[in-house]
């Protein structure tokens, strides 16, 4: 069991209905964590329905959905960025 802070931004935050939560997980990878979250409730399933429209950061660095969660304390999910 690993405790991870999970953060949501932009429409991911709006769909799930909260900006962050503490999650206890056995998932080894980001994809595993996504599967656990998506299984929870409809709003999560909707937010994670299309991974190609999502980006993920591990401890504030961009990462892939296949990345390991080992030692990770903060995972953030968000749409493609639109700065500038």
């Amino acid at each position, binding site marked *: 069991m690993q405790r991870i802070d999970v953060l949501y*931004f*932009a429409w991911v935050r709006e769909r799930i209905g909260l900006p962050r939560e503490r999650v206890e997980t056995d998932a080894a990878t980001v994809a595993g964590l996504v599967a656990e979250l998506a299984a929870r409730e409809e709003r999560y399933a909707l937010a994670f329905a299309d991974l190609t429209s999502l980006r993920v950061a591990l401890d*504030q*660095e961009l990462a892939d959905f296949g990345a390991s969660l080992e030692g990770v304390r903060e995972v*953030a999910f*968000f749409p493609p960025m*639109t*700065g*500038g």
Partner: protein
Amino acid sequence: MRVSVQETAFDAGAEANAFTAGLTGAGAVVTFTGIVRDNGGRLAAMEIEHYPGMTERAIAAMVEEASRRWALADALVIHRHGRLEANAPIMMVATASAHRADAFAAAEFLMDYLKSRAPFWKKEIGADGAAWVAAKDEDEAALRRW
């Protein structure tokens, strides 16, 4: 090198002058300023969400990378978040170098990365509701030239 992620408005001209005044030996200063377009009056405001902590780290890394690639005397990035009125400056980049080619290239590089790799999300608020701005394929494509 200065990075500022801020909610408050800024004066692009005053920032450019202060940036230029701080230089020694740089002959070329390039600035880019992004303005909230009002889309012919249809946009009332824009809201910019960001990821505090990651935003500053990501921009600092972009500035470091630009400094490795080009001979920069200095660089500045200012980016607002929160609620912005139409026609207000959203952000600016300034770069200084001995020669114009480096200053231009570094400013364009920073803009391309800020568009698609800094954790900001824009929401447009108009008369007919609010909508998140979608990322553009051309912005992703622009990264490939670097």
